[in-house]
């Protein structure tokens, strides 16, 4: 049809025509390639019946940063891709579940003409992959508007009409770096000026905990998420829990540092065998699984805590004011949280607190100052 290499100098009009053709085809290439990025793997009529969906898992995997780590054999891994593969395996094992996996990737450019899509969505239902869609998160990189829009559009209970389906258990899992309570800039490698602090995290989760319109017209009752998994460093600070507690019945987080191999939540595949009663006991088993996996992989500190948000609410209320004041003072001091410590070591922390509402598994680091520390309260404070 055309041959860029076959241009002959001599007839300038022919050369110009051919050049324009080349440019035209090159400029169409991004459109041609982008049009191939959304894949619907199954047709709607092939989907498992929505009534059989007992739980929904939403993975938000932040990969827009440095997520390289090495295992003991020296092999390199990318934390986000590793979690992505774990999520695929869990999704494939959940025959009665629906899984939404969002991979937030670094922004790139394609052929100068357009920015590449920096998010990828995978939708599983009944253990089968239904949709794979590349999307752009660049308009709201710090809020999960795009992700929520896909969730809302594709979720099974959205298709059955109001009042016809029992609300599935909803679990949101976030994998990323530490989410700050104050300055949240420089979180995203591609969008360093876009803040992502506990405020943006809570606002994003609240999208999923919004009033549930499918319950019926006029219903304004909030439908909190059943579980939020926060796989980041320092996820168990008072401020973080204060932000998340109103949005979820349970939170799993790491109060101390967390190795990049992240929390292995593949224990959630046991949801298939779960009888639907006593969620807390079920989650305790999942936490044990996660803790055991991490302690085998690492020699740094491992702390995995399960918070029952209703039960920790009195503690949060009682220490909220002094915590906020401390935070304000730190903010005045350039807003740099330089050190974290177990809140129980703070004389202002209620010494009568006996761990109500928190189940924590703790393994001190094998080296360092804290190697002889035997327990952790589950609450992390700043100084």
């Amino acid at each position, binding site marked *: 049809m055309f041959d860029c290499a076959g*241009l002959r100098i001599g007839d300038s009009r022919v050369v110009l025509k051919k050049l324009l053709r080349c440019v035209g085809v090159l400029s169409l290439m991004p459109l041609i390639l982008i049009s191939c990025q959304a894949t619907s793997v199954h047709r709607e009529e092939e989907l498992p019946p929505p009534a059989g969906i007992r739980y929904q898992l939403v993975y938000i995997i932040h990969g827009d*940063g*440095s997520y390289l780590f090495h295992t003991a054999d020296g092999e390199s891994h990318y934390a986000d891709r590793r979690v992505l593969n774990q999520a695929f395996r869990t999704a494939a094992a959940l025959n009665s579940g629906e899984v939404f996996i969002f991979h937030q990737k670094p922004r790139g450019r394609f052929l100068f003409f357009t920015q590449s899509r920096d998010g990828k969505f995978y939708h599983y239902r009944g253990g089968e992959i239904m949709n794979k869609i590349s999307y752009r998160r660049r308009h709201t990189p710090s809020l999960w508007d795009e992700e929520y829009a896909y969730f809302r559009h594709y979720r099974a209970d959205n298709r059955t009409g109001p009042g016809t389906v029992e609300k599935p258990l909803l679990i949101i899992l976030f994998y990323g770096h*530490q989410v700050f309570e104050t300055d949240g800039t420089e979180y995203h490698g591609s969008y360093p000026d876009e803040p992502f602090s506990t405020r943006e995290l809570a606002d994003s989760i609240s999208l999923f905990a919004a009033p549930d319109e499918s319950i019926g017209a006029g219903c304004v009752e909030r439908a909190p998420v059943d579980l939020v998994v926060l796989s980041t*460093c320092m996820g168990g600070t008072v401020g973080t829990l204060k932000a998340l507690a109103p949005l979820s019945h349970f939170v799993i987080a790491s109060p101390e*540092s967390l190795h990049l191999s992240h929390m292995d939540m593949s224990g959630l595949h046991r949801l298939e065998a779960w009888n639907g009663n006593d969620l807390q006991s079920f989650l305790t088993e999942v936490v044990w699984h996660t803790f055991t996996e991490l302690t085998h992989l690492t*020699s740094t500190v491992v702390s995995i805590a399960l918070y029952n948000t209703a039960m920790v609410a009195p503690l949060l209320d009682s220490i909220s004011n002094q915590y906020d004041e401390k935070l304000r003072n730190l903010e005045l001091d350039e807003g740099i949280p*330089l050190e974290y410590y177990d809140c129980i070591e703070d004389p202002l922390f209620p010494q009568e607190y006996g761990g109500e509402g928190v189940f924590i598994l703790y393994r001190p680091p*094998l080296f*360092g100052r804290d190697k002889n520390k035997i327990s952790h309260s589950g609450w992390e404070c700043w100084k």
Partner: protein
Amino acid sequence: MRKFKIIIIVIVALVFAQPLIARVSSDNIEDQLKNYMNEITLKVKGTEDPIQKRVLLDETLLDILKAVKTVKALPTTTEREQKLLGKFEESVQAKYDELNGLNDFERVADEDLDSFTDYVLQDLEQARNYVTMGLGVFILLIILIILIA
């Protein structure tokens, strides 16, 4: 004609390489630091003699301390970066002290040196936290250059 072909090839090559070039400038510097530490870890583990293991670890930690001190002293380093570098320096110094049994640390036993080197690497590779996140690309790049020089 030949010139035209070359220009087309160069343009196409640049177009496809551009995303890679853009990424090298940000997170990959942090990745390079991790790769550097991983190479040291492999060297330590590949050495039979505990004295040699200790020397390798000792020199590496001292190199990092030297690099951090150099960057801290740069006129372009902000006060905030200096504080963050100070925390990083403290953390590396503690590892050096533990390796050598200084400052109330129990000296790392010869048979634990492999585990200790894993610990040093894993501590660097924690999910990015308040120290590493606040350090800019420029700071990390200089540390890397000093280390590999």
